[in-house]
């Protein structure tokens, strides 16, 4: 009996890794692979025939806002991400030092994270509108006589600024959380050792904090950048289509213009950019561990 069972176990043993991978694989096929194939199908096929009609529309039609959307999405990412990372980094360093009311401070920093992007957009829209809190404050303080106009196609630069302010307010916290967690994980022993050898603050930052924080920084940057390419709710509520962005255009093409093919194309472009950026970051930030 026993001698029969053992060879069987040995026989199936080599399949066990595949069996264990099955759930993940099935998930990938049904929830990632299939929709992706569908999106390609919607974008490039019509009645079973290959077509570039959607691509032509996207690139050349006067009704399409693709180039503006691409420009503004890149521009927003380029402006917002450095601000968020540096602000979050600064706050994380500050919070790393224990002080009275430390916990309260940490909670209040991450509070905006609990608010949805559309709600955040609405809050800032109301605050910055001509009769809003911000303008009323400045007018009654005598700093300005006319309200500052943040919104409308005629004020695109100010709209851009409003989006940057709202995004920094809303989403810096996620970067902070990741960096703060990374900082907390650095063992005190390293600092103590550095102190023993008489390292300056800068040296401690340069040779301990920064290298050990690289993996967290990488994670934060990847998440933030990918989110930046999906930016939508905030832009939509603050600037409508005055400042077109890729995700917004995908939504608009789908819901208002009934162009599912073009909307899929936008989705594919966002996916492509995301994959590319993920690849670049992983190459760029190869974590160097101190205990290598």
């Amino acid at each position, binding site marked *: 009996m026993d001698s029969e069972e053992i060879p069987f176990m040995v026989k199936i043993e080599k399949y066990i890794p595949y069996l264990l991978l099955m759930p993940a694989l099935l998930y990938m096929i049904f929830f990632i692979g299939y929709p992706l194939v569908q999106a390609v199908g919607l974008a490039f096929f019509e009645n079973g025939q290959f077509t570039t009609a959607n691509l032509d529309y996207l690139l050349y039609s006067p*009704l399409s806002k693709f180039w503006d959307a691409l420009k503004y999405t890149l521009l927003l990412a380029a402006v917002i991400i450095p601000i968020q990372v540096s602000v979050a980094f600064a706050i994380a360093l500050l919070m790393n030092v224990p002080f009275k009311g430390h916990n309260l401070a940490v909670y209040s920093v991450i509070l905006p994270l609990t608010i949805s992007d559309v709600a955040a957009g609405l809050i800032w829209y109301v605050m910055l509108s001509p009769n809003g809190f911000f303008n009323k404050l400045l007018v009654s303080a005598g700093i300005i006589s006319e*309200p500052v106009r943040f919104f409308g196609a005629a004020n695109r630069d100010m709209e851009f600024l409003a989006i940057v302010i709202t995004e920094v307010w809303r989403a810096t916290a996620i970067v902070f959380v990741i960096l703060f967690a990374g900082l907390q994980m650095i063992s005190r022993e390293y600092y103590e050792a550095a102190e023993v050898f008489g390292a300056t603050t800068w040296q401690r930052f340069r040779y301990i904090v920064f290298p050990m924080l690289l993996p967290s920084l990488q994670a934060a940057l990847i998440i933030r950048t990918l989110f930046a390419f999906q930016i939508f709710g905030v832009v939509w509520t603050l600037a*409508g289509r005055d400042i077109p962005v890729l995700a917004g255009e995908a939504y608009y093409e789908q819901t208002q*213009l009934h162009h599912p093919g073009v909307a899929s194309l936008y989705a594919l472009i966002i996916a492509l950019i995301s994959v590319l950026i993920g690849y670049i970051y992983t190459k760029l930030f190869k974590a160097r561990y101190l205990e290598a």
Partner: protein
Amino acid sequence: MGYEAISKTIAIIITIIVIVAIAGGAYWWYTSTQQQQQVTITWASTQLVPPQEQAFVKGELLPPFTQETGIKVEFVGLSYDELNTRLQSEMQSGKVTIDLIGELHGGIDYFASQGWIEDLSKFPALSGRTFPDVLEKYSHIHGIKAYVPWMTATYVMVVNKKAWDYLPPGLTKEDVMKGTDKWTYDALLAWAKNLYEKTGGPKLGFPAGPNGLFVRFLHGYLYPSFTGAQVKNFNSTDAVAMWQYLKELWKYVVPESTTYDAMADPLLRGDVWIAWDHTARIKDAIEQKPDQFDVVPVPRGPKGRGFILVVVGLAIPKGAPHEDAAWKLIDYLTRPETQVKVLEKVGFFPTVKEASAKVPAGPLQVLAKGVIAQESTSDALVALIPSLGAKGGDFKQIYLTAFEKIVLNNEDIKSTLDSLYPQLINLFQSQNLPLPPPDQPVG
């Protein structure tokens, strides 16, 4: 002794149970046979489909009708495409199950053109209700009386009462409220300019955000008023003059307009004093502060007072199993008191003149007065939204693109319009659809 008493009680209880069971069974048998005799009609509608509105239809609108006539109604909410497919297959198979259709003018127009709709002139007249001439005229299509107007909606202007103090010379409040000849687009420009200069900022607003309905103002209001048509004169000299006018007007328009999806909030915040929008989207402002706003007709242009009328009609398909019962439902739905109920609950306006007298005082009356004043202006030039189906998005986008290029980006008017015109015409030609009124009058 005690034993006997208990058994007596039990006997009484058993007797009661038996009596109740027999009575209940008899009642159940009676009602179930009654129900078998009861007529159930199917009402397919593309309107009042959202859950809240369906709840109103099933819970409040229809029960009194069933009580009165004994006719049960099954309300089926469908999209236009679903209704179209179902009707087509029922017509082809010859097995019609739909008794009554509730759809927009454009949809019924198409069904009638296919010969699927019964001529309603064979039914007895609906006494005690008058339909405005405009609605009566549009319900006669393809040589038949295709539908009975059921509900309407439109887009009007809202004026914050503060703005009356800044009327330009030569224009009175009376002119605006009633929509006289003096209430023109030039007068609106003068008014907006006056407001801008005297209050220190623009006060005229439009819902030109991505989900706003500003595009309806372009193709259904400005175009007909300035060129006499929605589509065919898209790049005419009249159209060029119209765009020049809009560029001039836009100097006095609140710049945030390109982010507004609905005008209720900007009106309530006081950012905007004069607004144009769909009645349903300004209802909030008027309900919250009925004393602060007036609802007025839109101005007129050189070719008339162009405005969009959304008309929902009730039609009976050919071969419907319960025609007469369906007509009874039409009779019920067009009664003034039923129409007022619909206005109160879902915000669609009555199609019979008698209903206006029954609207209770308050915000709804403010709205209804404006809507009726607009419909009754002598120079009314009604525009209907074309039924382009999935291509409706492209139709809107062409007008919006023209607006963005000409007004927001200051590009050349004539060449912009010339480049977009072929795309616009192609939308109708490729689907073999007639141009919407007023380009092609119905009849």
